[in-house]
């Protein structure tokens, strides 16, 4: 076997996989680094797939995270169309051999998992009809983008960020859009009621229909193409395009094969180490301790987390000091609405609304046990930046003052 191939193997060529490779090189690691990814494309940005790319404002080359010569310059070996099917670890050592689905063997002495997540499939009859789309990768987005010009009636199943972003793009094109959400409010898993209510009103104001508490029982079709969406109350919504955005499942198969502890995702510690301390994992495939409440394990699906955890994972692979963790943050652009989120609001027991939601410029600040934990800022970059800064310093903003729009939030930051 080719011994020159040993070095670090990173499985998954997304934001996290690339981030690990770059961080290894930045730390002066000189052994071979291989990134093996299932997809045909070099690492690219997913967020625009439901935003600018879908709207036709960005092309595939814009999506790429790095130019081709970057990989050569940094001596990062990037394998595309290289799905890792199996891994066998050497006895008593961190190294091992991975095998791709085409049978190529890759030796490694350090291993990182960055396998991401796949979209949850809608488990109803008709979900495989033409005109039914998911939105995770470039082929999905390319297909959806190609179908939009022909479409007239679009049903979006799932009122999460990706579904709402795609709905906004379709509506901006003048299509008839209905969003169907099982829960009684949009963004129910990730936001407080005022934010859910705001987005419902904002999408309706822009001409979309939002159906809450409605579950899909079947997709109807004719000649192999989708024609309608059947709901549990018997209603059928006519549709020639159905976009499904009902969440993701972390990809944990390889980790399970390796015998690593997994919950919903691959369980890692705050240094991105799996239950086998020689193996690290980063990005959407992981489940990690909450930064403020380490007793709770959470799954984070964001670019910021993938990028930040990748740096931590690289440091752990090299046994270096753990880099300072950044404040979790996220964004979502829907039509002309810019939502920026700092911190993690899950588990909040109180919130303060700053500004008037009807003005489409306001912020919700979240508290837990009296402590500021997050904010959702709608068209309010100053508030977003202030809360991000406060959280970065472990500081807070008194809930009694936070609603006063006459005072800039950044002047209210108090060390605890």
């Amino acid at each position, binding site marked *: 076997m080719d011994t020159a191939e040993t070095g670090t193997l990173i499985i998954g060529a997304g934001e996290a996989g690339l981030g690990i490779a770059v961080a290894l090189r930045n730390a002066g690691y000189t052994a071979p680094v291989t990134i093996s990814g299932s997809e045909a494309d070099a690492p690219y940005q997913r*967020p625009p797939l439901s935003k600018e790319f879908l709207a036709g404002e960005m092309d595939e080359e814009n999506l790429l995270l790095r130019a081709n010569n*970057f990989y050569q310059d940094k001596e990062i070996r990037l394998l595309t169309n290289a799905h890792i099917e199996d891994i066998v670890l050497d006895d008593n050592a961190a190294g091992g051999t991975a095998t791709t689905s085409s049978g190529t063997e890759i030796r490694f002495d350090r291993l990182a998992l960055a396998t991401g997540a796949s979209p949850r499939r809608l488990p109803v009859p008709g979900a495989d009809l033409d005109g039914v789309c998911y939105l995770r990768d470039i082929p999905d987005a390319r297909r959806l983008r190609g179908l939009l010009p022909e479409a007239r009636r679009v049903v979006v199943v799932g009122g999460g960020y990706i579904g709402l972003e795609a709905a906004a793009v379709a509506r901006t094109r003048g299509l008839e859009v209905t969003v169907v959400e099982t829960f009684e409010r949009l963004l129910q898993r990730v936001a407080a009621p005022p934010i859910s209510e705001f987005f419902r009103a904002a999408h309706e104001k822009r001409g979309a229909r939002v159906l809450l508490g409605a579950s899909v029982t079947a997709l109807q079709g004719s000649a192999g193409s989708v024609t309608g969406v059947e709901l549990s109350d018997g209603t059928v919504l006519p549709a020639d395009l159905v976009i499904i955005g009902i969440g993701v499942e972390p990809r944990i198969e390889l980790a399970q094969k390796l015998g690593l502890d997994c919950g919903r995702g691959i369980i890692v510690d705050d240094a991105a180490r799996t239950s086998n301390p020689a193996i690290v994992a980063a990005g959407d495939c992981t489940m990690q301790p909450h930064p403020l409440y380490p007793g709770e394990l959470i799954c984070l699906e964001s670019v910021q987390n993938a990028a930040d955890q990748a740096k931590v994972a690289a440091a752990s692979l090299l046994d270096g000091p753990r880099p300072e963790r950044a404040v979790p943050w996220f964004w979502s652009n829907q039509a002309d609405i810019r939502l920026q989120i700092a911190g993690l609001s899950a588990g909040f027991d109180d919130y303060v609304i700053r500004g008037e939601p009807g003005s489409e410029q306001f912020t919700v600040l979240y508290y837990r046990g009296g402590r500021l934990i997050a904010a959702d800022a709608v068209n309010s970059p100053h508030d977003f930046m202030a809360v991000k800064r406060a959280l970065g310093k472990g500081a807070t903003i008194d809930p009694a003052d936070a609603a006063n729009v006459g005072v800039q939030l950044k002047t209210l930051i108090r060390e605890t």
Partner: protein
Amino acid sequence: MPKIILRSPDGNLHTVDARVGASVMETAVKHGVPGIVAECGGALSCATCHVYVSGSCLERTGTAEDFEDEMLDDAAAERRPNSRLSCQIRMSDELDGLEVEIAPEQ
């Protein structure tokens, strides 16, 4: 292809070729120019692609407006009149030879 000349925080000069329509941020990151973080990949959400446009080029790029302007107020490095978020500067032939300095902190 229009060229961009970037001074990175370590003082080095980098001259890179840009695609017309690509942003300054995107061009710099793709070529591995150090200093620009660009956490949000150009979505105007992070303010970690802060640059100072050289005085002679500012007329051609224009200054920051609205949302970008507000984000810059709270950027990590000093805000100056020639501050821009580089993901918001799209390259065109008219911008050939654009000179920018990458802000020391992002």
